């Protein structure tokens, strides 16, 4: 049906126009409709985008577009192939739900004078991501990459009167720009080899590049895109930027923006480097995959370790993004490692796992950030120590949040489980790797991966348990109301997708296989997933027992148990009573476990990593008796080993360089003249001595 309209509706143009309308309406109609003009064009645009990308994925043909009149570079073609369409679909889904959510969420800011700016940058941010993914030459790629960074930067510092947000924004912008510099270098290096800025020429010349060039391109791109993706140790901006931004923006950034970096890496590795094309010796690139796996494993463990001790919900979610990006990196790395040993099906399988996890992360992380936004919307705090008991006031929000939590923890019947299952299968197949050292390292990486999963469960038990369950820790929560319907609808859409993708993974797998099949020329069989599709496919025997059936068994057991219990035990009554407080008469919220104390055992186990320091200040009733204390203040602070050990020395060495350059600027005119004197003598002597 979709293809019927193919020639009638210029979908891509409509997408672009809708987002531009959104941006312009935001600037024009501030007073009108309390934020509706900001997001309604966005919603329409996202629907168009979803249709467009589905069309490309299903049809299996790439689409070319031309937008602006020719500029100096005369390259402004856009190309949407399978890979791009897959990422566009993600952008479409997330931006659809986030925009619907924002219709309600914007009420938080609608009184601000500069709320128009928010709408403007919100729309341009999404648009720049769309165009980034569809761009087909270095120039437009870099332009939209920079625009994406810039617009998201402005969204991060939207609450700019708060100094810490400003600092977060600056760190973000600086880190992302350093990354951009490397990306630019790597792409330009490629273009210097191919002689053109167009991606087509990269594809054509990919086989002829020497391995040396490819390695340099790869390492530049890896660091450059890795900065954006937030891999350890380049992640420093992420835990600052994501919490500073308004929650809908955090959702966008975490769910799709950091994925664009993965997109770039996939392009460079699979598209422009000729890996797997059969022409070059793939074995040379095994270290790429190895690097991916190593960095991915480190990122996932580090990310989740920081996440579990965090008190701020949004920071915890931000760290969890680092962890998930790590998992995706592991998957990509496994895919490259397999590929370099010519294990093509396994490589495709690992790629599938990585992409499925990417898809899932986009979905459930946007859900979780929106949920966190809903909490902030009502309570105006993201600090878990001040929350609790939200489940009573905000039943729907908490239900959706629970879905997100279950998904991200990788529990069965939710989408996180599927991708983690696929990841584990990829790990298990690592015994096919002929190189023992690499195989063992992959085994160790699998330990890191599993450790991550274990701690993720703990993290989200903590997040959900502390903020939604138990007794409210502040009074405001007793009077709390559910968030507006639009916000619930936004969350509901992605929550539904979480469940669908969790129960019927066939959908996601087919989509990914289609999307990534397209990218290859017909003579390659790199991504053909047929052998593993039967794993989840609906077949007529028990070996094809799929998740919906397991769920049905689950439910029927539940019902049967219910019946059995009442048959055996008979009807019993329920009595509502106070929680048992060890017999003390009054029970209050301060007697509960706090977020920090909940994660304290983990902190203790990994104390060499966190390096916590304890500061106890006690005020005594009387100085002579040190046992009678009026109040005790305990402060636990963790040292950030990356900021201390890595970024500290870098910054100080840069500062030293600055001090050195300052020596040129002593203020003494004599030394200034000495510069001139020395340089002229040097040059003259050079010319005199040179033949």
């Amino acid at each position, binding site marked *: 049906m979709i293809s019927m309209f193919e020639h009638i509706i210029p979908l891509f143009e409509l997408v672009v126009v809708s987002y531009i309308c959104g941006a312009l309406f935001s600037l024009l109609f501030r007073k009108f409709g309390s934020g509706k003009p900001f997001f309604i064009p966005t919603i329409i645009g996202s629907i168009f985008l979803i249709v467009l990308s589905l069309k490309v994925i299903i049809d299996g043909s790439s689409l070319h577009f031309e937008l602006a009149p020719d500029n100096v570079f005369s390259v402004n073609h856009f190309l949407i192939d399978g890979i791009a369409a897959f990422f566009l679909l993600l952008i479409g889904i997330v931006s659809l739900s986030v925009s619907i959510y924002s219709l309600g969420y914007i009420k938080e800011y609608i009184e601000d004078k500069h709320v128009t700016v928010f709408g403007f940058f919100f729309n341009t941010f999404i648009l720049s991501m769309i165009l980034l993914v569809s761009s087909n030459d270095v120039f437009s790629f870099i332009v939209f990459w920079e625009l994406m960074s810039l617009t998201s930067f402005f969204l991060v510092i939207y609450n700019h009167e708060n100094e810490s947000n400003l600092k977060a924004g600056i760190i973000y912008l600086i880190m992302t720009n350093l990354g951009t510099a490397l990306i630019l270098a790597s792409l330009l290096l490629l273009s210097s080899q191919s002689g053109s800025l167009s991606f087509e020429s990269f594809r054509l010349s990919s086989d002829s590049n020497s391995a040396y060039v490819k390695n340099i391109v790869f390492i530049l791109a890896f660091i450059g895109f890795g900065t954006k993706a937030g891999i350890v140790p380049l992640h420093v901006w992420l835990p600052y930027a994501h919490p500073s931004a308004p929650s809908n923006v955090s959702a966008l950034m975490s769910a799709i923006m950091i994925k664009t970096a993965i997109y770039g890496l996939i392009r460079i590795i699979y598209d422009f480097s000729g890996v797997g094309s059969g022409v070059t010796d793939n074995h040379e690139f095994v270290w790429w995959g190895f690097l991916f796996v190593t960095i991915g494993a480190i990122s996932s463990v580090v990310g989740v370790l920081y996440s579990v001790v965090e008190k701020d919900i949004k920071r915890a979610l931000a760290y969890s993004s680092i962890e998930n990006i790590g998992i995706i990196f592991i998957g990509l790395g496994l895919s490259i490692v397999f590929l370099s040993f010519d294990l093509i099906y396994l490589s495709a399988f690992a790629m599938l796992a990585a992409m499925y996890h990417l898809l899932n992360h986009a979905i459930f992380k946007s859900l979780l950030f929106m949920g966190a936004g809903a909490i902030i919307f009502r309570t105006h705090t993201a600090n878990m120590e001040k929350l609790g008991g939200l489940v009573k006031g905000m039943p729907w929000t908490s239900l959706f949040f629970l879905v997100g939590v279950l998904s991200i923890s990788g529990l069965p019947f939710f989408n996180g489980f599927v991708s983690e299952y696929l990841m584990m299968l990829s790990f298990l197949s690592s015994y096919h790797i002929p190189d023992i050292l690499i195989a063992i390292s992959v085994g160790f990486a699998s330990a890191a991966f599993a450790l991550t999963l274990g701690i993720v469960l703990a993290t989200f038990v903590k997040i959900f348990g502390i903020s939604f369950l138990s007794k409210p820790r502040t009074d405001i929560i007793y009077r709390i109301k559910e968030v507006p319907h639009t916000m619930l609808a936004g969350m509901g859409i992605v929550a539904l997708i979480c469940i669908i993708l969790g129960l019927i993974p066939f959908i996601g797998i087919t989509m990914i296989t289609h999307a990534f099949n397209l990218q290859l020329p017909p003579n390659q069989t790199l991504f053909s997933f047929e052998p593993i599709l039967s794993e989840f496919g609906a077949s007529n025997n028990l070996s094809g027992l799929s998740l919906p059936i397991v769920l049905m068994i689950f439910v029927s057991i539940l019902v049967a148990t219910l019946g059995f219990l009442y048959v055996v035990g008979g009807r019993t009554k329920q009595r509502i009573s106070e929680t048992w407080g060890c017999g003390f008469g009054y029970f209050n919220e301060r007697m509960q476990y706090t977020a920090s104390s909940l994660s304290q055992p983990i902190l203790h186990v990994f104390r060499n990593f966190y390096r916590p320091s304890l500061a106890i200040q006690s005020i005594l009733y009387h100085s002579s008796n040190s046992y009678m204390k009026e109040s005790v203040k305990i402060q636990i602070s963790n040292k950030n080993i990356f900021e201390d050990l890595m970024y500290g020395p870098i910054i100080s060495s840069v500062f030293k360089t600055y001090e050195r*350059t300052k020596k040129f600027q002593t203020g003494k005119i004599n030394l200034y003249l000495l510069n001139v004197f020395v340089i002229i003598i040097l040059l003259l002597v050079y010319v005199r001595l040179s033949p």
Partner: protein
Amino acid sequence: MIGIISSTIRILPESFLVVSLILTPLLGGILITIFKKKKLVEIISVLSTTFILFLTFFLFSYIVDFKKITLFNEFFYLDSLSMIILLLISFVSFVSSIYSINYMGKQYRDGIVDDKHLVRYYQGFNIFIFTMLLVPIINNMGLIWVAIEATTLVSVLLIMIYVKEDPIRSAWKYLIIATVGLSFALIGTIFFYYANIHDPLLPVQPEEDKINWTNMLENSKSMDPMIVKIAFIFIIIGYGTKAGIAPMHTWLPDAHSESPTPISAMLSGVLLNCALYGILRFHLISSGSIGAEFSNNLLIIFGLLSVGIASFSVLFQKDMKRMLAYSSVENIGIVTLAFGFGGLIAIYGAILHMINHAIVKPLMFFASGKISQKYETKAMSKIKGIVTTMPITGIMFLIGGLAIVGLPPFNIFLSKFMILSSGFSSDHILASSVLIIFLAVIFIGFVRNLVMMSFGKPKTQIKNGELGNLSLVSMGMLVAFIIILGIYIPEPLDILINDAASIFKQV
């Protein structure tokens, strides 16, 4: 549109245009000396710069069609390259003259300058324009040197308008170092002249037109390579001192930060380019004589050095105008580097970058001038929340800042990208990679300060509100150009830049 105007103006002979172009600022200076009333003086200066701008546009349309103008027995020589410099001079002086009214008016009201100094300022302003206008249109390289030296002297006087310690100190440094530097430039010029007239077999025969650039270029093939090399070294050091190329740039941060803001804008936006123009002319001759490699390498080395030193100096800078001054060093370095890369795209990018910088830097200086008037300090640590206190200025300042660090969709991104891509594709991969690193460093330094100043919560004692509308008009024009040139290069300009770049290609 331009076609219509040019056809109507074609009636005027180009000799008239050129002569009146030079005489206008002189006349303006004289009239200002006569009238001396604040209002009148301001109007005269704006009128004179407007008139200059018009004349430049007419000349522009000539050049686009006929590529070059030669007048009065080759005394004046205009080609596309000089047209670009001319365009920059007239445009920047036009916006500066508008901005000056508000800025100097505020200084006048605050009692920082008195009547005498105000008149002296406007006199100096016009004479400064006069001396700069001479540079690109004269053919005689000796006289170009005279004109550039004259710009130094006039600008020193303009910096000295404020009788305070810091301006005097920086004026002194500027004067001494620029004079020394330019002395070397003169030596280089004479060497080139000597190479032109020199024939080892015949006694030296001084011929007047042999110092003309056109003549030198014609005879460049027969020049003695050794002399040309030595000469070019003197030239690049001499004019490089004036152009703020490291390590001879040391006077620049002082001079540019202490002068009155409109003058800072002129110094950074145009004067540096004028000096660079001198280098480029000799670069052409040297390339014609001994091939481009020697001068290209020198340009690359000096360019990289400038960008490197400037980028690290910006990092922890505390004074707003000094930061901008270092950024000028950086940008001039980029332009120099790009000319050194050679190749059509690199030179196109270099010229575009020159233009872009001349648009963005004045905007930054204008905005910073207003900001420091508002906050009564140049210390960046004390400036917070400009977008709250002065929304329009703040946004313009932000746009300028983002443009200057090379973010799209603003103009400098385009030229930087061209330069980098041409650098990578022209076997200067190492230099381009180093450039990328330096650009990232300068980005860090610049953006950190920019954001901390623009946003945040301003101190309570600062009232919200803009200072003067005229200055906003001048800044608005610059912002418009920043955005337009970031997206699209108008065709006449494109032709002009292409012509100018092809001058380099022919040699």
